[in-house]
């Protein structure tokens, strides 16, 4: 067992070798095509040219210059999108999943695990909002991603062609990027460098402002007010610079102003209500993330029109929980019902997408999605939550998320239903480049496993 653990990174490296400087034109012929934007097509073809989808349909003759992939028995899906991640940022942990804990016994749907990322200690104590603590709103993940980072390949092997990555280490953490998981220069990978501002509600305790949840909320409110004032003051000054006091340049406000939307943490029902109201106040377009208890507050979500990024890391019983502790009914119910969230959201017409929240392996990601399907989510809606929904949330549905002519050629080709246990991913196309992931389980290919062991 131990030895096999060591093997995994080697296998993943092996898949990188399979990346070919391939042809520019591919035609997947006679496959089942799940377009997502329309009904599935049987015996259909998808033509990929120069990184875009050139054609999709049932009666398409593959172009003469195309590299033909025999698609009989294969299923083609749009490339999967991880709607909130740290993929591509070297050394980054997954975005924090822990809900802000209830002080007075409020329920915590997720295990109260310590935050996976350390809170970045401020360089000096802040005496108030004017010191701009924990504010790197100006950071752009687009400037931080590294094409060769291991996480890019790991996700791609699992069928993910696109990730939305955010800086996550501050209250105003910075602006996210939507990018494709293939390329040598990050600039080529970026689809949208302005995906929105990632907000956390972490506080500094008594040592530095803000030291409490309400302090963080008040701080965010003040920053948005300051941003409004900054815009007004600059506009007046730009018109009449002569004779007026010059407003100070402030990069923390620039970062907020340049963000087209704001990602707010909302795990528990209470937090969903709180953040929706807060977003209304901020006059900013909210995207909620977390959503484990969103099923309880569909009405307010629906009314707000806010989309939800649903974590696939379903709440679990804490592993080290004292067996003598009688968990209250509320906690048990939250855990039981969390996977039903996506189904409830879908039934209510609420736009939502999945994010993997640091789940280790692609297989586990799909298994977590299967749990949502078991709890009432239609499989087609599950696919949508991995593809077109994410594209819609980030305003990129005109180029991403479905198999349609003219869209970016991001595809996953499998030998069966994406969520089925035995299904293997045969090919992943990112920006029209073909990848062949290493077999998921060495069990399936005992020979390959032996070969690996030899190379050790």
């Amino acid at each position, binding site marked *: 067992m131990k030895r096999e653990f060591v093997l995994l990174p080697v296998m993943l490296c092996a898949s990188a070798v399979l990346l070919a400087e391939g042809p520019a034109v591919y035609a997947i012929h006679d496959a089942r095509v799940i377009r997502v934007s329309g009904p599935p097509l049987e015996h259909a073809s998808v033509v990929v040219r120069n990184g875009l989808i050139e054609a999709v349909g049932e009666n398409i003759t593959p172009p003469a210059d195309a590299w033909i992939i025999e698609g009989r028995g294969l299923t083609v899906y749009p490339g999967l999108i991880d709607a909130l991640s740290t993929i591509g940022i070297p050394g980054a942990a997954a975005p924090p999943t822990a809900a802000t804990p209830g002080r*007075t016994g*409020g329920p915590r749907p997720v295990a109260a695990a310590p935050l996976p990322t350390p809170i970045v200690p401020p360089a000096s104590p802040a005496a108030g*909002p004017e010191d701009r603590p924990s504010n790197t709103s100006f950071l752009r993940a687009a400037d931080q991603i590294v094409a060769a980072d291991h996480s890019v390949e790991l996700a791609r092997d699992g069928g993910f062609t696109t990730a939305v990555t955010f800086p996550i280490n501050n209250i105003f953490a910075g602006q996210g990027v939507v990018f494709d998981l293939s390329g040598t220069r990050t600039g080529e990978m970026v689809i949208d460098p302005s995906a929105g501002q990632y907000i956390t509600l972490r506080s500094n305790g*008594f040592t530095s402002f803000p030291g409490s949840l309400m302090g963080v909320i*008040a701080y965010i409110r003040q920053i948005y007010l300051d941003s409004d004032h900054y815009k007004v003051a600059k506009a007046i000054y730009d018109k009449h610079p002569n004779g*007026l006091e010059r407003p100070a340049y402030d990069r923390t406000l620039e970062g907020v102003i340049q963000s087209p939307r704001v990602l707010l943490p909302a795990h528990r*029902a209470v937090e969903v209500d709180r953040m929706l109201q807060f977003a209304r106040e901020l006059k900013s377009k909210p995207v909620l993330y977390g959503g484990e208890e969103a099923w309880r507050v569909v009405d307010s979500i629906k009314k707000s029109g806010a989309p939800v990024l649903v974590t696939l890391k379903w709440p679990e019983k804490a592993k080290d929980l004292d067996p003598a502790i009688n968990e209250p009914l509320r906690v048990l119910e939250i855990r039981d019902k969390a996977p039903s969230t996506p189904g409830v959201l879908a039934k209510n017409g609420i736009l939502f997408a999945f994010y993997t929240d640091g789940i280790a*392996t692609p297989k586990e990601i799909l298994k977590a999605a299967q749990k949502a399907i078991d709890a009432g989510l239609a499989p087609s809606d599950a696919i949508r939550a991995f593809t077109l929904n994410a594209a819609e949330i980030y305003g990129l549905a005109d180029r991403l998320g479905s198999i349609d002519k003219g869209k970016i050629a991001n595809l996953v080709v499998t030998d069966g239903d994406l969520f089925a246990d035995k299904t293997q991913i045969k090919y992943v196309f990112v920006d029209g480049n073909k990848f062949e992931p290493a077999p998921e389980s060495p069990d399936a290919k005992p020979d390959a496993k032996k070969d690996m062991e030899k190379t050790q």
Partner: protein
Amino acid sequence: MKRALALAPLTALWLAAAPPLVIQNGTILTVTKGTLHGSVLIRDGKIVQVGENIKVPSGATVINAAGQFVMPGIIDCHSHIAAESINEGSVSVSSMVGIQDVLNPEDIAIYRALAGGVTTANVLHGSANAIGGKCSVIKMRWGKSADELLFAGSKPGIKFALGENPKRRGGGTAFGATTLRYPATRMGVEDVIREAFTEARAYQASWKLYDARKAKGELVIPPARDLKLEPLVEVLEGQRLVHAHCYRQDEILMLLRVADEFGFKIRTLQHVLEGYKVAKEIAAHGAGASTFSDWWAYKVEAYDAIPYNAAIMTRKGVLVSINSDSDELMRHLNNEAAKTMKYGGLTETEALSLITINPAKQLMINSQVGSIEAGKDADITIFDGHPLSNFSKVIMVLIDGQIYFDREKDLSQRPVRENRRKELISKAAEEQKRSAPASSRRPGL
């Protein structure tokens, strides 16, 4: 009664059409209008009539309170329940923060407060700093959203704190000794308050200046809004009530002097354990006092307390309430109030006032709650005996005419909930068993 229960989750629209409710045959402690044996008629969440002979309207729901005591819902002027953070202790002036932003309607302490007969509470910021955060007055509408907890029409408040807590210099060594929080003395606390209000006056003036210049048609950039100073301007303008945590007579007098100097009022002194020493001065300022019955000596500044505090201040003309500051004490405020009869000889009505009409006046919500009178909100607690006896239990609690606590129902639900709990535990165990073999097949990870 069953019908009323079924109606509870419905919207205001339905509420308007809800049948009237009559509480019959009870001993009614109105607090402000004496005690009588009779009925209370409730319609659309309001008390419509209180009297010995009330005709039950057709279609009305009847609660038979024979042998029981009906009193106004208890009001706690100092609580920290239902909030997910209490102290913004990083700074000495944290008026930019507010409890409303972190209300948690699912805090079980709300339900337990109901079980103790409490219907309204003033949820305060903590006492970590000289000027703390904004408070929220809430009703214990268990099962409703955070917004629906808020007491509509209540005046906004803010917490101040004097003495040992605000002069603690902060616990962090993260930035070295030089960055410890100011102040470190009671003199410093006074200075922080003065400085904050001096700043607030300047801020107020900057807006007045801007408005004046703009009115004249001058080209001016508006001042930036400051969420820290805005609540202090509201205090200066009499729009926000100050609830000041304090213990010693010297600091109480200090605060009253500072407030007089800046021209604002202290609405309530909280804890105020040495209030009996300066009751005359407190009454002269017009401040209320919200104190404990017999809880003290938990720190040096809380040593010189006596159980006669509430009674002495009452006799000196101070508006006094008994508060909890604790989710446990909150559940037996009726007993706390009763102690003032033994220590200081308050009458029954005076004792009951300490936890009903007096805190309502302190919070300026007495036109809506605090007594059983026609026109007021139907916030009512029914005890199985006299509420000032510590053998009495809460049977039922109504807020806005809706039943939020029903002892019988609570008891009957317990086995149902326990069964559901067991079901979920075994369901989760089964699921784990089913998924375990699959994961053990996977090598390495």
